[in-house]
């Protein structure tokens, strides 16, 4: 088992010491960074600091130097976003800081995505996400998308005011095993249930695991409307997406 001093980057060590509290998370993250190259740790540190310019430059330099794109994504960007997610969950940072980190992630991924795409590397899963019909609020949904992207998912963002048909067409088009719906308003929350009913009516319900979230949504509402899971925030959304993906694979005997 690695120890904190095995992590070379001082910024990362300080982040772990100051912000991580759960022993299992500390252990897992130390393990991740202890095996990561110093250059990858530096990319992660810049991402956690929200420095998109530095992430952009260092990602490009690492790829130019021959580092594998998957290694840069996993050890640099995704591992950095892992710490960002924990700091956000524990209220050490808030939405503006997460937006800055996501902007840095995007700067790095702009170099990585074309390489992964050309080499046919599969994402860990694909998710269709949208805010439901009648609702124009998207900050919560966008945070989920940033965190999902930061964990290696491919996300198809349908935006706001998304109809039942648009959700179904997108799931079909992208062959997505996961779908997430968001609502901020109590008036639009019932449209989540209506969308799930539309999937049932179209014999598509078994094809996709459906997650729901948003300020007025609770686990109880999620259960009542027949969703497969509820995430109370963007970090929980990622954990839920991973769990549902595993369930889906188990159901299909993969």
């Amino acid at each position, binding site marked *: 088992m690695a120890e904190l001093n095995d992590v070379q980057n001082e910024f990362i060590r300080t982040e772990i010491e100051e912000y991580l509290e759960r022993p299992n998370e500390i252990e897992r993250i130390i393990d991740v960074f202890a095996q990561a190259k110093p250059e990858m740790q530096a990319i992660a540190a810049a991402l956690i600091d929200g420095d998109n310019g530095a992430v952009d430059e260092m990602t490009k330099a690492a790829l130019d130097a021959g580092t594998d794109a998957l290694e840069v994504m996993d050890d640099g960007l995704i591992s950095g976003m892992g710490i960002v997610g924990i700091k956000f969950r524990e209220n050490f940072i808030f939405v503006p800081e997460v*937006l*800055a980190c996501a902007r840095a992630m995007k700067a790095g991924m702009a170099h990585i995505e074309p390489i992964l795409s050309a080499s046919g590397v599969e994402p860990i899963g694909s998710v269709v996400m949208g805010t439901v019909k*009648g609702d*124009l*609020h998207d*900050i919560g949904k966008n945070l989920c998308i940033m965190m999902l992207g930061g964990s290696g998912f491919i996300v198809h963002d349908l935006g706001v005011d998304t109809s039942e048909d648009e959700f179904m067409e997108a799931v079909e088009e992208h062959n997505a095993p996961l779908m997430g719906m968001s609502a901020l*308003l109590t008036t*639009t929350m019932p449209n989540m249930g209506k969308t799930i009913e539309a999937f049932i009516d179209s014999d598509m319900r078994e094809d996709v695991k459906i997650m729901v979230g948003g300020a*007025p949504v*609770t686990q109880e509402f999620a259960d009542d409307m027949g969703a497969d899971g509820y995430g109370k925030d963007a970090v929980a959304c990622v954990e839920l997406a991973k769990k549902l993906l595993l369930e889906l694979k188990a159901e299909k005997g993969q």
Partner: protein
Amino acid sequence: MAGVKQMTSRERVLAALKREPVDRTPVCNPTSVATVELMDLVDAPFPDANREPELMARLAETSYTELGFDTIMPVFSIIQESSALGCKIQWEQKDNWPTVKMREPIWEDADDIRIPPDFLTHPDTACVTDAIRILKKRYGDEVAVVGKTMGPWSLGYHCFGVEPFLLMSLDDPDKTKQCLDRMKKATIDFGIAQIEAGADALTLPDHATGDLVSGEYYERYLKDLHIEFVERLKIPIILHICGKTVDRMDFIAQTGMAAFHYDSKNEPAESMDVVQNRISLVGNINNPETLFSKGPEAVRAEVEKNLDAGIHLIGPECAIPLQTAIENLKEIPIAVKEWTKN
């Protein structure tokens, strides 16, 4: 309470906003009481009730005439000023609130900010001042008529878009302060117009919520502006911020605002401990899980929890869900009156 002569609803609300003795704790919703059932009852449906003064007044007064609340709040949404500033609005139908199309922002920079010359005569702002005049004519000193003027932080979300505005607050604090300072004219002008129309108090929503930004943000960007609003809008102001706010209630209590409308994500007793009688608290009956989904008994339990903690004005935490049953809303004043008797 004991020894206090019977008050009118207006007297009761204004006294509670000053933390003076009251004959009973007033019932108040500083955001919106509109529901579909009430719209049907008085034939004043959305979206028209947001745009026509007579319908706005007719739907608003149901909080007093039908529900037994001590206030009338004619502004059911948070879009009136933004519409007058030039934002696009999705007006929706009876079963949904109108919303600003925040993905189509109208400003990118401080220099873009313009308060149009017709800001106060635009149909969507004039509707509010006209509705307040109608209500004051009908109810005089009987019930408190509460107006609403949006704070610059909320206007920033609408006019710049939520993500660009929040990123600007991190990237360029000076520019953000400059933007807030320029947008505050809309808050003050609309507030004064409603005072001149007869409003007894003003709700000032400014959504620097703990779900989005830190308590330190409130102090850095908004505390001084809110102090200025108290100085320039010379009637009681009820600040409204949704979500977790207990970490910034100490700063809020230092502004001189009459009251803070707080959310059910904050515990009543803990909130009272933080504000230490420097500001009245209004709230905090849970909307989605209690008023919208449960029955009168659950509503009563939350009312009593607030009363036991000494909350100054009882009401829903935010705009009532449009499909809320009237029975649940009526339970709030009933529970307050029975608690007072006991």
